Every structure is written in C-alpha cells, then in structure tokens.
C-alpha cells in the first residue's frame, strides 16, 4: 500500500495551530506518511512535528467553511488545528485517521526511520540474556540457562533463553509448560545475592475445577527452596477471582500439593478497569474549571492512585519476603504478563541497586517487560482518549513507571536517572521511531526482523548526549534496600506526565535549574580545592627538600 493513497491533501496553507500556554501560530500544514508537520517558516523551525502513531483520537468541527481538528495524543497532549476550507479539513482529518491506525506493523515509522546519529553501541545487543545470567553465575550455581524455548514452541510469549533451576531438565520444563497458562512455566526473575533468595514468575496453574496437579511443577518450584525453608506464592488476584478462574481451566496452587509454600492473594486490577481508570484520571487532570470538591471527587473516582498503592504494596510485600523473611517468592496472576511483571520489576527496584541505574533500568525493562512477553503492541495501541474499548488495551506499563516515579520521589538520591527518563520511556512505549516496543513478545519481534529492520531505542538513549538529559544530578550510588511509604498521604499525582500539558512549569523549571547550578558549582569548587591542595602539598615537599638537601 502506498501512503500517497491515504493522503488526499498533502499540504494546506494558512493553518492555525493552538496549543495551551503558547500563542497561536499560523503556518503551512504538511502531511507525510508518518508525520503531521506545521511550520510557520520563521526561524526555520517546525512548530509541530507529530508522529501519526502518537495520535489517539481526533474530533472535527465546522464553523462555516472553517474547519477545526482537535488532535488528542497518546502522551495526553491536546492540540487544535484551524484549517480553512471544508474539503481540505475533511481530507486532512480522514488521512490522519487512516494513518494513525495502520493495521500492518511493517508500515509503522520504525521501519522507515533512518537515524541521523552515529550508532556507538547497537542497543539490540546491549542486554543479552547470557550476559544478564553471568551477573548471577558468580554467586550461585543452582541455576542454568535453558534453550528449551528456542523455537518458541514451548511458550510463545517467552524468549528463546530462560533461567531455570539447574536440577530441572528441559523435558520436565515441557511438562510444566502444559500445566501453566500460556505455557509460562516458572522462571527466574531475580536472584537476591545477599541471601540467595529468588523471585520467580509464571502463568497461573491450570488446575481447573477438579484440582489437577503436576508433579513436575511442584518439583520445579520446590527445587528453588533451601532445606527446611518455606516460600511464598503471591497471587496478584484476589482469592475470589482466583477461584473463579478455575471454572475456565485456570486456578491456583493448592496448599495440599504445595505444603512448603504459603499463598498470599493481593488484588491488582487489569484490562479495562485500568484503561477506564486512566481515561477518568486524564479527563479530571485536563479540566481546568473544576472546583475543589469536584476535582477531588474525580481524582478519587478515577482510582488511579488506588491502583498505584495496590501495585506498590504488593511489590513491597514481595521484597519484604525476600529481604526480611529470607523466603523465596513465586509471583503470578492469570497469564503472568501484566500485574505479575509490575510486581517482579518493582520488587527489583526496591531490592537491587543496579536496577536504579540507567543501564540497570534499561536491562530491567528489557528483561522483565520486553523479553518477559508483556504485549506492548496490544496494551499501548490506544491511550486515554480512545473510545474503542478493546479488551486488551491497558496502561500497565505506565502504572509501573508511575510507581517507579513514586519511589524516585521518596528516594531522590538513589536513582541515576531522573523523571524525564521515565517520561521518555512512556512516550516511546506508545509511539516511537524505534523498534524496541513493537510487537507483543520476542517471537513476534523475531518474525518482524526488528533487529535488522529497525533501530533500537537503547542505541539512541545510551549516547552521551542523550544520557546527560536523563541523569539525576543528585544521584549517589547506595547498596541499600529502599522501602517506600505506601500511605495515601505519601503517594502523589505524577505531574510530569498528567499535568504536563495543563500548566506552565516555568517557575518549577527555574527552581530545578537553580538546584543543578548549586550542585555543579559544588563539584567545581571541590575540584578546585583538590587541585590547590595538591599544589600546596607539592610546594611543601619542595620546601622540605630545599631546606635539607
């Protein structure tokens, strides 16, 4: 298919762009296969350069022959274009609609994007499972790499290489896979070097109503326990939901068959409940005229912060089991690709200092989200302005990023990255020139040949130029486990995401700049003092030598 077919009017003059907190701009609107561009042709800058894939929804209005298109983006921005001429406006609107909802992934921008920067390190090879495993192998020999899923035959949503207990062979893994939802047999998610405890994740066991069991499954997860030790299974569903799942062939681990494990049910929401929560939350944040009572009740009704609290609490609970109770943990919900990953990855943020560095967080995103089979393509297809109500759209990854931001706020010196890093990941998960977040799992990514045909996000992020924007000036590495507060008074609305387009942050930015200045000045002074001290020490030695030659 040619994009040209979809673009009936590629160019319109005298279009007026309205953005909140900016004066209106008149310019020429251009439509390309992947971008919407508006330029007033002053100072050679484009006032608008928008990826079609970033467009979540559009509204059109007419007053006489003047048309107005309101564009609602997946990053929550809302802009307005006034387009003279009814026909032009209708053409532009229908083109945008078509181009922002392309069916075929291979028509998406990442397949056309040619980077203007030199690739220093190919991000597709930055985080290989073998390398990640090496980090553990110095500390433990109880685990091994398994290639059982090499052809994606055992579990379509798992990567070709997974980490499993050494004592369990591939044959057993195949059997366990038939007993777990989506073939997602328990695999290692995190190894706590301090005490050798682990976090594993999986899909729900397929016990069904007649309490089916699987010896290999029991053996596999027991293999991770030390002699005489008990473990915890954290089911991210309420007991009620887990019980209902049995009717559909799913279920949970029965105490009788897993006597060494204690099961804890938490209740993390999924799917449309989260999507509706996001829609309500963003709607509340976008309304400037709400009085106080209305704002607070909308905020409450959205339940967004309730979800944040529930996810964080569960992650803290998992971390507590590992670090304080010295017990290993198995985490799953239904499929093990949403709430499960929120919990396993946040627990690592709490427990593992490395995951609070830029590199470490990228590795975590790669390992616990991309490789682990979180279906980004489905979940991030639409954002807060969608009205399609598809069952598979849900802001699961955004909730995770929000939770990380909450911890970052409480431990502002413990993270190497700043808020902008998290915001950038949010943007690219929904619309990007890079191939990283395309596809729903490794199997799909392989078929799409993303490594050959697209650029990895990490190739771009990990360049010194970009890194400097994402670095937290207050960071100082520490090896502590960090326990966040989950009290409602401690959780906050993430303004950098949700109020980003709804207010000017000029004064806050100024304050931040001032803070950075103080830190930079401090470094400068320290360096200077060191140089002077050295100089003085040299002079003193010289003096000593001269006095007693």
């Amino acid at each position, binding site marked *: 298919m040619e994009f040209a077919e979809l673009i009936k009017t590629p160019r319109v003059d005298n279009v007026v762009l309205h953005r909140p907190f900016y004066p209106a701009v008149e310019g020429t609107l251009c439509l390309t296969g992947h971008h919407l561009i508006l330029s007033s042709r002053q100072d050679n800058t484009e006032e608008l350069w928008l990826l079609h894939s970033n467009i979540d929804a559009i509204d059109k209005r007419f007053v006489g022959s003047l048309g107005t298109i309101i564009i609602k983006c997946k990053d929550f921005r809302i802009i307005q274009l006034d387009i003279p001429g009814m026909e032009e406006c209708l053409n532009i609107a229908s083109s945008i609609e078509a181009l922002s909802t392309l069916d075929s992934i291979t028509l998406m921008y990442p397949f056309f994007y040619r980077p203007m920067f030199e690739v220093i390190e190919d991000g597709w090879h930055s985080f290989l499972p073998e390398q990640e495993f090496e980090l553990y192998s110095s500390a433990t020999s109880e685990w091994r790499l398994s290639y059982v899923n090499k052809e994606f035959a055992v579990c379509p949503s798992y990567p070709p290489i997974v980490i499993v207990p050494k004592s369990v062979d591939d044959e057993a893994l195949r059997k366990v896979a038939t007993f777990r939802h989506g073939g997602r047999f328990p695999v290692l998610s995190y190894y706590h070097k301090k005490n050798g405890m682990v976090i594993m994740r999986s899909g729900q066991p397929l016990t069904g109503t007649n309490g089916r069991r699987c010896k290999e499954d029991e053996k596999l997860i027991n293999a991770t326990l030390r002699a005489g030790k008990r473990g915890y299974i954290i089911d991210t569903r309420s007991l009620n939901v887990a019980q209902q799942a049995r009717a559909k062939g799913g279920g949970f681990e029965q105490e009788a068959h897993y006597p060494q494990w204690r099961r804890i049910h938490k209740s993390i929401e999924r799917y449309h409940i989260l999507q509706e929560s996001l829609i309500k939350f963003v709607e509340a944040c976008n309304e400037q005229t709400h009085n106080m009572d209305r704002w607070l009740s909308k905020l409450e009704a959205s339940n967004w*912060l309730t979800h944040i609290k529930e996810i964080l609490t569960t992650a803290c609970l998992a971390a507590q089991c590992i670090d304080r109770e010295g017990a290993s943990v198995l985490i799953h919900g239904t499929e093990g690709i949403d709430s499960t990953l929120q919990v396993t990855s946040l627990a690592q943020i709490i427990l593992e200092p490395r995951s609070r560095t830029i590199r470490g967080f990228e590795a975590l995103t790669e390992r616990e989200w991309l490789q682990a089979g979180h279906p980004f393509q489905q979940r991030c297809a639409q954002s807060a302005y969608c009205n399609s109500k598809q069952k598979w759209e849900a802001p699961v990854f955004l909730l995770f990023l929000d939770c990380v931001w909450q911890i970052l706020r409480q431990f502002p010196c413990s993270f190497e990255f700043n808020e902008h890093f998290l915001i950038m990941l949010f943007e690219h998960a929904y619309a990007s020139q890079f191939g990283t977040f395309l596809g729903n799992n490794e199997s799909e990514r392989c078929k799409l040949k993303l490594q050959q045909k697209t650029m990895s996000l990490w190739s771009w992020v990990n360049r010194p130029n970009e890194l400097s924007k994402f670095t937290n000036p207050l960071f100082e590495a520490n090896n*502590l486990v960090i326990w966040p507060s989950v*009290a409602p*008074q401690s959780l906050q609305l993430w303004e950098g995401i949700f109020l980003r387009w709804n207010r000017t942050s000029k004064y806050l930015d100024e304050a931040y700049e001032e803070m950075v200045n103080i830190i930079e000045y401090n470094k400068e002074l320290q360096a200077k*003092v060191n140089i002077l001290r*050295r100089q003085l020490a040299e002079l003193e030695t010289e003096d000593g030598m001269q006095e007693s030659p």
Partner: protein
Amino acid sequence: MEHIRTTKVEQVKLLDRFSTSNKSLTGTLYLTATHLLFIDSHQKETWILHHHIASVEKLALTTSGCPLVIQCKNFRIVHFIVPRERDCHDIYNSLLQLSKQAKYEDLYAFSYNPKQNDSERLQGWQLIDLAEEYKRMGVPNSHWQLSDANREYKICETYPRELYVPRIASKPIIVGSSKFRSKGRFPVLSYYHQDKEAAICRCSQPLSGFSARCLEDEHLLQAVSKANPVNRYMYVMDTRPKLNAMANRAAGKGYENEDNYSNIRFQFVGIENIHVMRSSLQKLLEVSGTKGLSVNDFYSGLESSGWLRHIKAVMDAAIFLAKAIMVENASVLVHCSDGWDRTSQVCSLGSLLLDSYYRTIKGFMIHEHIHSCQFGNFLGNCQKEREELKLKEKTYSLWPFLLEDQKKYLNPLYSFKSQRFTVLEPNTVSFNFKFWRNMYHQFDRTLHPRQSVFNIIMNMNEQNKQLQKDIQDLESKIKRHKNKQTDGILTKELVHSVCPESPTLKTSLCFKEQTLLPVNDALRTIEGSSPADNRYSEYAEEFSKSEPAVVSLEYGVARMTC
C-alpha cells in the same frame, strides 16, 4: 505545681502512630511544670509543652497497660502505654489541668528564660520596628499620615496605638466611622503600594442593618479612594459568604450599600468563618490520622473536610486583591465580620504576593507581626492586652531566636534577582492545591521522603561557602610558599648557582586525594526506612514473629555507603 501528682513513670511505651506491627519505644515519662518529657532507651528525648496540648484521651485498658493519647496543636499525636492504670490516671488528670491554663501568667512564655540580659531582651522586641516598616512602604506621605486618634485605645481597644489613615480624614470623621463599625474597627491602612500609590485597608463590618448609614463612614471611605491619585474608584471586599453577610443585617450589622458610598465596587469573596475552618481542620486531621487509610478514604475525607476548598478561597481572594492593585491601580478595603481573621488572611496574603520583601525572612517576620500580632494573635489578643500583660518585660520575643537560627529556614533556591515589586501570580486551578504533608504529618517520620532534596541542597550551599573560604586560604598559602620559594631559590642560586631538579613528579605520584569536608558524607543520607513502618500487608504479624536481625536501619540515620 499543685496539679502534678506523679512526676516520673518508668517502662512507658511510645507507639508509632502508623505502624501495623505495634512497634514501640520503651522509656521513662517525666512530668514537669511546663513540659511532658519522654526519654526512650536510646536517650532520644521527646518534649511536649503543656501549652501545645490540644486534647488528652485515656483509652480502655489493654493487656499491656493503659493507653494515653495526646494530641498537640502542632499536629503531633503521641500514643503512650502506661503500665499501671493509677499512673496513667494521675498523668491524665495533671495534663488536663496543665493544658488548659486560663491565666496568661501561667503560660510557659512567662517562665521561659533563654539567658538573655535585659538589653538583649529589649533589642529583641525592638527588632520589629513598625514605623520603619511603614516608612519602607512610603508612608507617611502626602496622602497618608499617622493618626493619634487611638493613642489611648479610646476609639478601638483592639487596634494598636499607631494607625495610618488618609491625610484628609479628620478626627471627627474617624471617630464617627468607628462608631459605625463593629468593635470600633474603622478603616485603616494595612499595606501601601508605593509604585501604584494604591492602598490595602482593613476594617470590620459596618453596623448598617437593613438601612442605616453613617456619613462619617462614607466620608472616610471616600477619603481612602481620594488618597489614590490614579484611580478614583476603590474595591470593598467583604470576605464572607454573601449569605452570612446578609444574615448579619438582622443583627444590625451587615455590609456596605453601594448606593450610599460613592466610587466603591463591592464584592463578596466567600471565605468561611473560623468555626467552619476549625471543624474543617479537625476533620482533616481525623482523616489523615486514620490507621491503614485507603486512597479513596483519604481523598473523600480530604474533600468532605473542605480544607483545600478553604485554602483556595483565601488564595483566590488574595489574588483578586493583588490584581485590583496591580492591574486596575485601585485601592482595596477588606473586611469580614470583626476584621481580624479572614481580613488578616486576605490582606497578609495579598501583600505577600505584591511585595517580594515579605518573602524574605526579616520581611516575613514584620509581615506576620503587622497582620497577626499587631492586630490579633500569638500571645494576648491585641496590643492593648499585650501592654497590660507587660509582655516586653516578662517574656521574650520570638523573632531574634528565629533570626539567629535562620539558616534552618532559608530556602537554598531563593533568588535575589527577583525585584522588589515582582508580583506573584499563583495558579489556582484546583489540581495545584495539595495536602500539606510536611505540616500535618511533621512528626510522622515514616510518611515522608527518606532523602530530602531540600536538606541536601541546603547543606551543599553551606558547603559551597566553606569551600570558597578554603580556596581563599589555600591560594594565600600557596602564594606565601611561592614567595618564600622565589626568595629561597634566589639565595640558593647565589650559593649553588645550579638549579635543583624539580621534585614535582615524584611527590604528585604518592599524593593521595584528600577527602574533603566531613559534611560531605552526611550530605546524602537515608532516614531509616523499613518495611515494618509501611503497612505493606496484613501478614505483618506473621512476619514479625521472628524479628529479623537486619533491622539496623530502623532508628536513626543509616549512612549510605558510597
């Protein structure tokens, strides 16, 4: 002292308010004439001034003892468990008596002795020179003058002696107006904006009833508007909800009738009265103090308390006032009922927005003094009462202590670049208002960020000053050395005539980078954080059966290893 029966109780437990695991500190409780003191086994002291106690409650006896819950006015809530009920009862009764001292003379301020001599004490009181402050604003001038009408507190008991009024307002006009105003509080100058030549004035409600009028009062208001050479009309802001103001008419009070006053624009702004505010705060504290609070309960509680709504109302009123002056160049007269609560809030916040001087520490002290002390608050209710109490001889002023300690209160990000009349225009969209956790939970350590950016930047600022000094020192030392060396080399050259090889390389190799100031490693610390503090699960009891040995983080400050 007659109220104190038991002065010391041992083995008292102090519970953590938000902890699930009933974590507690054991220590000794002391009761003194002025304070309740708890010293825990780590020798950490918790002092509670009796005067700060808002309520004492004795809960039902438990197996571990008798619970005693003390709520303080500074939002501290302490929960003690006293082993013996008798002791608990004694302390409870004593605190009940001690915390509601009726007489001013029994207050701690009268017995507090900070080892200042009399002249220091006097200096402290003179720190705030109001005449000086009015001079800074630019009064007296050709439009405004100091009036001696209230010198003997004859016209208004609750006003100070020195008052600024329009120059053209004669004494009979003032006296007449004061008779038409509740509690005699006639319109006086609160803040003068020099550049705009516009004034903020304050007063109480007029005794207008349904139809009464007072020519002197009308004249005084006209004098206020005439004192503004740029804009002839003035705003009269009634800070009460319209309904309240109308109800007051039935009691012979009320608000200005626009028809009777020339050139006024009358405006209600709808701030609730102190009774509504008090119960709002109570509700807020009740909600935020709930154990195991859910997000939804927190926000619905926040909403139904109305606290943020009140904050927004005061803020909107202050912005209205500031805009009237900045945009329309108009003077504004502000009142509520008596003109000492809502009026103070609006006038003081308005001038804070208008005048950057009030955003400095010294400026804010003066600001507080003008708006709270002089006209209303802290100890005693007005200047007259304070004179009768002989506060200046018997107590000490707070301000010199704050000034001495001001490092603690300085904002490291404050920029002097902002000019004197840089007006702040806060955005009052509802989502910009937040629950002030640092205030209402200031004693609940576990709810706050465990690393404080503010403290780090503040320390760094201090460190930068020290480093600058170090650099100067080092530079002058190096200079001295160099001078000495040149001298030395000269003399040596005379003797040896061969220049010795430079030892620089050798020494720099074995030079070890010195660690800098000791402040450095204390800069980034994590306040003890532990899962037990944070209510992650109802399984906590099960978890805490065998208390893990790794709880070294629990108390005090854990140094971060760098």
